[in-house]
């Protein structure tokens, strides 16, 4: 559906690339997870793919056709949910949705249904500026669905919600996949990615480290990891080490000899463990 080749992006005053030559493709009807710690370049990538930031270098293809300039066909077909809830605070929830609904060239969803779907029907006529952060986030999510998008970009749409609302949004996302919506889902929450995504890309410092399905990743790295927590200068340190890698085996011996160990778990690796293992970095 979407193919990205060698995408680079540098913010004006910065010396480093926020997006540093990434390539990936997203299949139609797939949920593609974009995972990485704070500042990895996830939102920047989403902004380029949605036309908010210009393509400085690299190529984007939609259904095998190179996109030179995003046109209204594209904007009519995509839905975008932002990481900062960006709503008109003086308008009610319903007015916010209706205003955006009027921007599209084709029939749109009813705002009342959408509000009901994200459990905001009781607050429909309240000013959105008086919503809690989680409510605003759900409003932004609902807004991204107003034009029944074929391609949906979700930037941290599930993070920051309470458990029951997180479940609600995840269920909607699963339902959308059933309807063959292609979804680009950005998150630093590995559990969410594990539960929802067909494939995930690990991104770190603007580079994609690996792309695979959560299942494959866990098969590849799983069951052979131990998590060791030990005390070091009064702080608790955590390391995840492979039981097959020679260097890691060496390290396990070293830690057991020199440090005070608090816990050792051999475990079914989570995506989070794998991420730390692959990038050497904790998630935000």
């Amino acid at each position, binding site marked *: 559906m979407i193919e990205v080749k060698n995408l680079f992006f540098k913010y004006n005053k910065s010396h480093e690339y926020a997006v540093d030559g990434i390539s990936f493709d997203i299949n139609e009807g797939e949920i593609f997870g974009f995972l990485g710690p704070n500042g990895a370049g996830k939102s920047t990538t989403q902004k380029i793919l949605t036309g908010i930031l210009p393509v400085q270098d690299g190529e984007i293809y939609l259904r095998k056709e190179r996109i030179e300039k995003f046109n209204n066909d594209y904007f009519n077909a995509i839905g*975008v949910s*932002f990481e*900062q809830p*960006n709503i*008109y605070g*003086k308008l009610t929830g319903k007015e916010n949705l209706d205003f955006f609904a009027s*921007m*599209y060239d084709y029939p749109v969803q009813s705002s009342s249904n959408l509000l009901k779907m994200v459990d905001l029907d009781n607050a429909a006529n309240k000013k959105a500026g008086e919503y809690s952060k989680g409510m605003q986030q759900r409003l932004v999510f609902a*807004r991204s669905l107003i034009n029944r998008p074929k391609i949906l970009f979700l930037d941290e749409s599930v993070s920051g919600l309470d458990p029951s609302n997180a479940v609600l949004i995840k269920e909607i996302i699963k339902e959308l996949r059933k309807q063959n919506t292609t979804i680009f889902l950005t998150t630093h929450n590995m559990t969410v990615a594990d539960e929802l995504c067909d494939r995930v890309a690990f991104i770190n410092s603007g580079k994609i480290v690996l792309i695979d399905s959560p299942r494959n990743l866990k098969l590849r790295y799983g069951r052979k990891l131990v998590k060791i927590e030990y005390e070091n200068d009064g702080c608790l340190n955590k390391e995840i080490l492979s039981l097959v890698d020679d260097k890691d085996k060496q390290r396990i011996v070293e830690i057991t000899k020199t440090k005070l160990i608090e816990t050792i778990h051999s475990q079914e690796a989570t995506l989070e463990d794998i991420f730390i293992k692959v990038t050497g970095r904790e998630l935000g």
Partner: protein
Amino acid sequence: MSIKRIISIFRNDFVNSIRDKMIVYLMIAPVLLALVVRFFIPGYENISIKFGVEESLKPSIGAFLENYADVEYFENRSEIYNRIEQYDDFFGISTSSDGNFDFILQGNENERNIEIADGLLNYYSTPSVVRDSLDIEIKSSGKTLPILATIGFIFVILVSYLFGGLTIAFNMIEEKESETLKALDVTPLKLSELVVGRSILGYFMPIVHAYLGVLIMGFEGINMFMLLIITLVSSLIGIVFGFAIGFISSNQFNGITNMKIGLLILMIPTILTFFLPKGAQIFLYWAPTYWSAMALKDLVNVQQRWGNMFIQISGIILTLTIFILILTPRFKRTLKL
């Protein structure tokens, strides 16, 4: 261009504006200003004068004065005195002992009105041959609009279109700060549609204010079609001003600083229009607000002519174009991420 989206933008701006106390104040301010001007500055009405004439003088001087002013008749001199006691400018004429007439004043009348009344009486005493040659001059003397009323009206319109611009600027800055602009970026909305839709508010307010202003201030004989054209073209000043502030300001704080500087630059030429001698006015030609003020001044004084107005309107458009040409590269620089 999609009309649906343009109207949506206008409606959204309007609703956002009337829910903002500050902007509501900006919308009401010109109306308040018009009311203030109306009540503290004499318009035509206060200049028109009234005479109280003794019955016996009705066929002679009474009949003459009726041509120029309101005349009431009274039985005798003491009734005239009673009427003069009242607040307004009322002049009494009664028979005098020498068979001629006396001119009675309370002493607190407007100087200008005394002059007019005095002029009329002198005129009555002049032989009729001379009188005919003076006719026109006296009639028009009660018709000139006081300079303060002119300035007042011009300020009502000026404030209206500049505040219309500020409303545009506030809405834009808020969209930047709340990042709702980004949400609009990913819809089919085009920049041109946003600009056109947003400009409607900048036209809408000054037109309402201009007609309300004329109504409140009780001006007579104004060409309403000319008023519409001058207001529409003048509104462009506010719109360009508003978008300029909106583009260069990234938040409310520096937005307000930019607004103050902008207002100063645009308002000063209007004030100077009334105080600089004619020869020095050439130094104001760069200011679109100067041309707008001149056009309005001629209009409310019922001296506006189409040809003259065309020059003044061209002045507005030309100076604005130059402003836009100078500012565009700056916008482009600040818009770049």
